[in-house]
């Protein structure tokens, strides 16, 4: 059973190929702006390097945000189109969960992802999301009571733990897979 994991929510594009839950290959490419140049070539290459074709894939795993709107949209568009055209299951995971799972501490965690104006964040207890994913401005975040949490801002992804965690996630219908933006966009705020 081959699973393809796609994460394009920040500047590191992560493409991982699993066989029966074990990592066959995992490629990371850092790109400030041009995810479009690299993501599909990375997917094409990781399959070729393992002498597989896209038709050998059994499952899609995709990070659906939050993070860069454009980055997430790119990964989600690719993943949902692959899942739809190949008629294989697709599961989504949030960027914040991937970071929480990859950190092995047992403490309560505050996982945050920064952008220019603020942070996306969520509290995790026993590696489970506690409450809702939020977006706070830098000023709001500065005022937040963070003392009781282990703050996780960056973490090397532990791919096999992520795979294990995703085993318990129900697949989504490909048409319904969409980015999790969290942040309300400017035009909608005036309503």
């Amino acid at each position, binding site marked *: 059973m081959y699973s393809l994991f796609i994460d394009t929510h920040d500047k590191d594009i992560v493409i991982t190929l699993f066989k029966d839950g074990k990592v066959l290959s995992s490629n990371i490419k850092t790109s400030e702006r041009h995810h*479009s140049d690299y993501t599909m*070539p990375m997917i094409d290459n990781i399959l070729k390097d393992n002498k597989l074709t896209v*038709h050998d894939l059994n499952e899609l795993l995709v990070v659906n945000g939050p993070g860069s709107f454009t980055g997430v949209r790119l990964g989600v568009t690719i993943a949902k*189109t692959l899942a*739809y055209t190949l008629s294989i299951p697709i599961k989504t995971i949030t960027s914040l969960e991937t970071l929480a799972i990859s950190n092995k501490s047992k403490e309560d965690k505050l996982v945050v992802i920064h952008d220019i104006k603020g942070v996306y964040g969520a509290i995790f207890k026993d590696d489970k999301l506690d409450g809702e994913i939020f977006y706070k401005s830098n000023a709001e975040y500065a005022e937040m009571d963070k003392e009781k949490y282990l703050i996780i801002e960056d973490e090397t992804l532990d791919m096999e733990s992520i795979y294990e965690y995703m085993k318990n996630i129900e697949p989504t219908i490909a048409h319904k897979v*969409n980015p999790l*933006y969290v942040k309300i966009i400017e035009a909608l705020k005036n309503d």
Partner: protein
Amino acid sequence: MKDVYIMGIESSCDETSISIVKNGCEEIATTVLTQMDTHALYGGVVPEIASRMHTENITMVLEDVLSKTDITMKDIDAIAVTYAPGLLGSLLVGVEFAKVLALVYDKPLIATHHIAGHIYANNLVKPLVFPLLALVVSGGHTELVLMKGDYDFEVLGTTKDDAIGESFDKVARVLDLPYPGGPNVEKYSKEGSHTYELPKPMDNDELNFSFSGLKSAVINLKHNEEQRGNEIRKKDLARSFQDVAFDQVVRKSKLAIERFNVKRVIVAGGVSASADLRERMAKLCEEMQVDLSIPPMRYCTDNATMIACAAYPQFLNKDFADFSLRAKSQEYFFQNCD
């Protein structure tokens, strides 16, 4: 020769569209999902909303278009996608989607320019015959182009400042007309008469255009009238502006027809949806005794059918793209053509 089926994909602005076209000229099936009602709530296209809606809908648009025909993905010979110009985030969705289809179905990928689409939409009406004069009028383009063959473009004249569609949108804003601006200028102008005096731009024998002076004249006129406490007659001002703008287009087209021995005039681009411009060009071509072709209205707005048409000569030339294809918000179509 074997029939060639191309699947076109277009997501450059606020329409998600997929179409299958046979041999670059016969529409097999098309789906266009417009977001216009959503954007109308905000008074114009909101790029982030447009991008979001493309991602939400694109696989359903594929399912829909395939449900309209017996042609299957197996029968498709190539996947063509608009890569430029347009809203970057929107283009990106179509481009990545197209790459996946090319990978999954093992088809060549073709990067097609939106303006080539508008030109080649004419093949749906009747085959292009060369040499021809193409009048390209849209939100980003105002050109008179001599075509001596497929993808052989010589720009005879272009705008020195604003594109014609851009000037319509700006004037719509000055007149406080609702979105979509350009078409509403025409709507208002229908009930107005040419009673405001506006300067005639580029009143010379050049083939270039200018619209910025005309737009400024509209702004100044409105401002001056308001200073004097006079109410602006919106319909009349729309009529006056449109007359002068289209008169310039027709004058320059006439000069180009006179100078170059063309067999055919084609009109391409979003502004070719204007009924007034269509009538004026029809009258000119009748006077000059040249054949005119303008695509039906539904092909003048953004659609993937025209993209699949324009990709056909590219397919024959094996002008294929790879998976590193990048969407571009701005790319002047004729830059490499002279």
